[in-house]
């Protein structure tokens, strides 16, 4: 409120002053490069709120002092400045802005034309409409070299982001910097994408080096919006969408299921189960018609709503710059969202302000400008979630396994029988009081649960609040020497509350024999103080920029959780409102105590603090914007490093040559306006190495306890936690980048190419020492990983009469190799849940991670082939079994024949955007895809005897010549971890298609609205892929990349919305 009054006061004063100056009415006309009048272009007297708009003929008139600067802007064109005069004729040009574009680099900005490092920039325009929740998701397909893989389609889920490949087997997440504050993906959740001015991705070592020990995996810089000079702009954006699953998995229906079940039993020497697969009756005695129970259909929540409201008010004057916004986002999940099991809603509030306190630049040369900045943001989230990718009883995973012959609920006598069997429990029932079928009661399903019954459970309610304040002071000290101070903080409070409301039974390992309530709260606080001195000056043809800085950061936090059994009232679950005391004593018939159970659970404690203390310096120099040089060095000390290597020094340098600005290129300048060669080299570090890894401390673990005494009483022990390695230090990444940028016809066509090699030295893993040392091996910097690749970026703008077109594309190719794991065996098995003989693996000389298993070569079709195969390899296979490949040529088929059968990291990632706007209509298409990634389809588990089958199993071998890809159902040796499960995960997705219409300004101006745009959008409309699963994009966890356990897919969403500006 106070600000508004101050603003009004300032405006009044300025207007009054303006009125005293000599004002005249000036007229002019604005046309585009083709001579056509521009309607609705804005003309502003610079530094004032005096504005006007061109009419249908492109004419305007404005009341201003003679010679005042007038700025002309129009959407899609660069800003132009002219001096007020009579009969102005202005031709707008699209490229003015592009040529002077600024790029944010760490601790400063740089003109794009002199950037020597490899930085990808995504502007607010590019971001618009691409993402609602997480800004980093918008980088998918927009920035070359950045691979964004969704982990699932669950509302609120984080994507996995890798910049230029997976750098290490440990933590490969990039560093996120929001307005100078370092944070992680949880911090990114608090930034409303609408509030973002630009995102710069620092891909190479030279650009990241200024962040030293945390930049080995790349840096993502986020800059939030500021106000624009001129009158206050008020924006309101609204959208509402309907989400549905874009594909359901093809599984067998009741008849096919029965046929396959019988076949498998017979092959295993048992009698068939279903007398007549064509006339089936379910457990309730009802006849099964057609498909039977379609579990996926029942589970997916079609047309789940997703809605967003955003309001922002911003403006600026010479003294004040403000940007205020409020955002509200809510999303129901397409699985479980209608039951409150998978929902997300977020509120964000932001206030970015800049105040100019002293401006004495005209009077003196020292201490002449003082600006104070405050950026404050607040986020609050409420969410619930389900298990998104698991074959051990997740809702979607279970839906794939439950037989179509199972009814959703049981009725009558069979229902009573089930309830009697589980009389100790209180089963989930539907609204008619019928209990939901427990799969294990009818067949053998291991841990699979009835997914509809699961929807009736009580989900944990997650909540979180985050405050990110930032205070900065900019003081111009002397000449071009500036001092900049910032204090930023991140305060997070989060937790969940949950309760088991009834003694439910879903399956053998998902049941409860008592009610309980649990509650957990955690909080973190991180503060950072930074002092920087900058000096930017141009002396003739020399331009020099120097940054000297110091930074200190401290993180601390703690958590507390508690639980208690036996709720008094399931409608009011809380820890205090429980009964039973703290201990439950059990006695036998004679009253003798036989045991005790604790009813209370409690845990908590502080997190280990993390502190960072750094000094950094950067020098940028260019001569005549032709020869550029930049060097950076940063020295970081971290509390995670032992005293042997407390401080790390990370240097880098980069060189650039603007060939375009050379005299000998003068003739080419009409068609070639940019030709720049870049080279960079540098070292960055990764300090996410765990705390206290360099020393030994005591640990109380349960491997130290033993029973003593005749009655066996537990005695608690302790021991040294590990062997120490005092020389442990950060993982270091060394990267070399070579790039070339082209610009044709005033940047109408731009093209850019980069080649890079990134080596990670000293990857941390256990030392390769013998196991007879008797203790967990010490960690050491012994591994090496290499990533190399090329990146291409292309942009093309053109006009046809008054339609403006823009085409943008990027493609990256990545090659990853784990050169040396560094441990004693040279490999590490990560496994895939249900396979004991293969899975994902890390191995010397292979890409990381890769799929490891047997290779198959068709199926043995007849006895002759089977005999030949058995004679050769000493196996005992029958026709219908796989022919496994003897990869090591030792004439034996055994575990040594396992090999690299694929990997989940794509070779190529690419994106393509196409935008058109014409007479108020705007149309945009965005494609994104990958090529060369494999998916491991781990959704079919052989060990679930009554489980349903994916339809590809119908192609199993049933006689000679019937199949060469799917073996017989019976024998388990065919279903080992092999390339049978590897599918091509390459895909091309029409990620975004939007059609919008902006009402003509002259219509809307009458009601005070300067811009009204309505639009319709479809997201994930089509996905072209060979993979038959729910989604080819599976980014959960860096070692199970590409493993599909029944992944919760991304939704196809149809949205309508509007953008209003006042």
């Amino acid at each position, binding site marked *: 409120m106070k600000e508004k009054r101050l603003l009004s006061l300032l405006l009044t004063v300025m207007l009054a002053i303006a009125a005293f100056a000599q004002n005249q009415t000036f007229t002019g006309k604005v046309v585009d490069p083709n001579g056509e009048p521009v309607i609705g272009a804005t003309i502003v007297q610079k530094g004032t709120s005096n504005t006007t708009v061109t009419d249908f003929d492109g004419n305007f008139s404005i009341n201003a002092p003679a010679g005042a600067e007038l700025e002309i802007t129009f959407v899609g064109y660069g800003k132009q400045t002219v001096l007020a005069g009579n009969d102005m004729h202005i031709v707008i040009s699209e490229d003015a802005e592009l040529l002077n574009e600024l790029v944010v680099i760490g601790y400063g900005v740089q003109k794009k034309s002199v950037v020597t490092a490899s930085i990808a920039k995504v502007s607010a325009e590019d971001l618009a409409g691409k993402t609602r929740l997480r800004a980093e998701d918008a980088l998918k397909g927009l920035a070359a070299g950045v691979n964004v893989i969704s982990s699932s389609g669950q509302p609120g889920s984080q994507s996995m982001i890798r910049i230029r490949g997976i750098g290490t087997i440990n933590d490969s997440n990039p560093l996120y910097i929001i307005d100078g504050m370092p944070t992680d993906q949880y911090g990114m959740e608090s930034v409303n994408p609408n509030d973002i001015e630009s995102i710069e991705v620092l891909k190479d070592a030279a650009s990241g080096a200024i962040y030293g020990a945390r930049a080995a995996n790349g840096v993502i810089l986020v800059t939030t919006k500021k106000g624009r000079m001129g009158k206050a702009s008020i924006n309101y954006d609204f959208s509402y969408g309907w989400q549905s699953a874009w594909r359901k998995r093809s599984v067998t229906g009741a008849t096919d299921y029965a046929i396959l079940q019988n076949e498998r039993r017979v092959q295993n020497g048992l009698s068939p189960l279903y007398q007549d697969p064509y006339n089936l009756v379910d457990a309730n005695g009802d006849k099964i018609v057609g498909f039977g129970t379609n579990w996926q259909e029942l589970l997916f929540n079609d047309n789940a709503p997703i809605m967003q409201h955003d309001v922002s008010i911003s403006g600026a004057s010479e003294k004040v710059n403000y940007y205020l916004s409020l955002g509200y986002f809510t999303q129901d999940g397409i699985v479980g969202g209608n039951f409150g099991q998978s929902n997300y809603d977020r509120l964000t509030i932001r206030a970015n302000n800049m105040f100019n306190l002293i401006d004495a630049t005209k009077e003196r040369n020292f201490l002449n400008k003082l600006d104070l900045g405050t950026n404050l943001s607040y986020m609050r989230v409420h969410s619930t979630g389900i298990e998104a990718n698991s074959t051990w009883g997740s809702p979607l995973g279970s839906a794939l396994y439950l037989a179509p012959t199972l009814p959703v609920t049981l009725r009558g006598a069979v229902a009573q029988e089930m309830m009697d069997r589980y009389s100790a429990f209180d089963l989930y029932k539907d609204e008619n009081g019928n209990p939901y079928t427990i799969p294990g009661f009818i067949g053998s399903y291991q841990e699979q649960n009835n997914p509809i019954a699961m929807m009736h459970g009580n989900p944990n309610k997650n909540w979180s609040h985050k405050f990110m304040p930032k205070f900065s002071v900019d003081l111009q000290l002397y000449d071009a020497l500036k001092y900049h101070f910032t204090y930023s903080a991140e305060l997070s409070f989060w937790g969940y509350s949950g309760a088991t409301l009834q003694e439910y039974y879903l399956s053998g390992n998902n049941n409860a024999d008592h009610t309980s309530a649990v509650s957990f709260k955690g909080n973190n606080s991180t503060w950072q103080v930074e002092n920087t001195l900058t000096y930017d000056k141009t002396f003739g043809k020399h331009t020099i920029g120097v940054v000297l800085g110091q930074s200190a950061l401290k993180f601390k936090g703690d958590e507390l959780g508690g639980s208690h059994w036996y709720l008094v009232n399931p409608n009011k679950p809380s820890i205090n409102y429980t009964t039973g005391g703290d201990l439950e004593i059990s006695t036998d018939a004679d009253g003798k105590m036989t045991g005790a159970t604790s009813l209370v659970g409690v845990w908590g404690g502080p997190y280990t603090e993390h502190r960072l203390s750094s000094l950094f310096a950067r020098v940028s120099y260019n001569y005549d914007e032709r020869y550029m040089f930049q060097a950076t060095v940063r020295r970081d000390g971290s509390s995670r490093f032992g005293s042997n290597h407390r401080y790390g020094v990370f240097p880098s340098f980069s060189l650039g040559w603007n060939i375009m600005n050379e005299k000998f290129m003068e003739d080419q300048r009409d068609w070639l306006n940019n030709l720049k060669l870049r080279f960079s080299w540098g070292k960055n570090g990764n300090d996410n190495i765990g705390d206290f890894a360099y020393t030994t*401390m005591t640990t109380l673990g349960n491997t130290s306890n033993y029973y003593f005494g005749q009655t066996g009483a537990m005695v608690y022990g*302790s021991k040294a936690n590990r062997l120490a390695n005092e020389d442990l230090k950060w993982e270091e990444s060394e990267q070399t980048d070579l790039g070339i940028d082209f610009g044709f016809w005033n940047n109408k066509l731009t093209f850019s190419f980069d080649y890079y090699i990134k080596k990670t030295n000293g990857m941390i893993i256990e030392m390769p020492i013998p196991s007879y040392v008797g203790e967990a091996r010490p960690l050491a910097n012994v591994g090496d990983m290499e990533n190399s690749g090329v990146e291409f970026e292309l942009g093309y703008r053109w006009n046809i009469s008054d339609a403006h077109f823009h085409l943008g594309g990027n493609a990256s190719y990545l090659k990853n190799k784990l050169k040396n794991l560094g441990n004693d065996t040279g490999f590490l098995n990560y496994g895939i849940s249900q396979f004991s003989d293969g899975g994902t693996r890390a191995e010397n000389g292979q890409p990381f991670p890769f799929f490891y298993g047997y290779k198959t070569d068709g199926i043995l079709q007849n006895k002759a082939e089977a005999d030949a195969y058995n004679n050769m390899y000493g196996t005992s296979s029958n026709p219908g079994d796989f022919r496994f490949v003897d990869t090591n040529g030792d004439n034996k088929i055994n575990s040594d024949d396992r090999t690299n059968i694929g990997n989940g990291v794509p070779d190529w990632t690419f994106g393509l955007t196409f935008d058109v706007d014409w007479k108020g209509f705007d149309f945009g298409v965005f494609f994104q895809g990958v090529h060369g990634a494999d998916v491991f389809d781990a959704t079919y588990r052989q060990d679930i005897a009554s489980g349903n089958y994916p339809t590809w199993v119908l192609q199993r071998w049933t006689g000679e010549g019937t199949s060469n890809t799917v073996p017989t159902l019976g024998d388990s040796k065919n279903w080992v971890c092999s390339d049978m499960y590897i599918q091509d995960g390459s895909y091309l997705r029409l990620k975004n298609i939007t059609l919008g219409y902006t009402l003509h300004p002259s219509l809307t101006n009458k009601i005070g609205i300067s811009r009204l745009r309505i639009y319709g959008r479809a997201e994930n409309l089509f996905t072209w892929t060979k993979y038959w699963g729910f989604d080819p994009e599976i980014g959960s966890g860096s070692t199970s990349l590409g493993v599909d356990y029944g992944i919760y897919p991304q939704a196809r969403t149809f949205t309508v919305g509007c953008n209003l500006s006042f």
Partner: protein
Amino acid sequence: MKKHICIIAGLCAAFLALTACSDDFLEVKNPTGEPLEEYYTTEETLNEALTAAYAPLHWPDWDGTAYNDLTVDGEIMGDDFWVGGSDNTDNQHWHRLFNFEADGNNTLATLWGDFYSGIKRCNDAIKYASWDGEASADFRRSMEMQARLLRVYYYNILWHYYGNVPFYLENLSQPYTAPQMSADEIYNKLLPELEEIIASNVLPMRWPNAEAGRVSQAFAYMLYAEMVMYQNDQARYAQALAYMKQIIADSNYKLNPSFYDLWQESGEWCAESIFEINYNDDQAQRDWSTSMAAGGTVFPTLCSPNGWGGGEGWDSGNDGWGFLPMRVEAYNMYAENDARRDVTCWDVRGYSYTERYLARQVSPPERQQQGLPDLQEPEL
């Protein structure tokens, strides 16, 4: 110009001087651990380290990687028992050993890791016992002797099963290698150590009931006799015999009048018992995924008939896996009226269950990885 540069340089220097942080800033405390020298100074904490040295005793039956119950390991190379299981890939390493077909991938591999962990913990306990602190000299002496005796026992197992193993009496540091010694050399290192422990007379002949489970002087005597006989060290036979006579004469030990009672829960730590490895399923922390925690044992499940539902004292739902079935020939070696036969052998021919089972230990509450049995299919 020069004035500019001087002023700027001066400001930069002042800047750096004022804003840098001291080294102390980077020191943080570990919220859940202490530096070793500061912690192991009282009797209570030293006892914790000693307990950690005892813990590996109970790991072999299931340590998260393989089943290597010492009873089974001790029998499969003999001919009184079959290996059992569902087929010859079920606990393949036992089958391979039984058929003299073992290779590098199929041995009692986990015993190696389990007992070297024990040796490392014993070495640590001996080291901590030697530090100054508040603990009494008697306590520290007793702790040292217990740890040294346990260490002899751990090496004994490795010596039996592997023969020529790496040997060290002080924990390793860079480059973490130890010399491999031949079985005889190891014997010649272990026996003097054992003799020294016995000669010190620090350990009691038998611990009071509340401390049952700790290694005692009688245990040392038994270990001595066992090793001496295994090695055929005739020079020490007389001494071993003397130790055995000492045990017989000692008032703490006598035969249990009922052979049957030895194998009941009430018979645990009876007068006949010299040493037992404690398992318990009350207060148990042990589970399939936390196999090294203290808790029950999987041995009764291993050697019960396949599919047996469990008897009195078992948690519901556990069934047997059919390992280590006794050979009929071994059963027939007992005389008809031998009281030990029916206590030792559970005759399940004809499926007539008797309740007199080897209920020496109570089994852990095992979590079933499988769901309920299929109603329509009998278990194979």
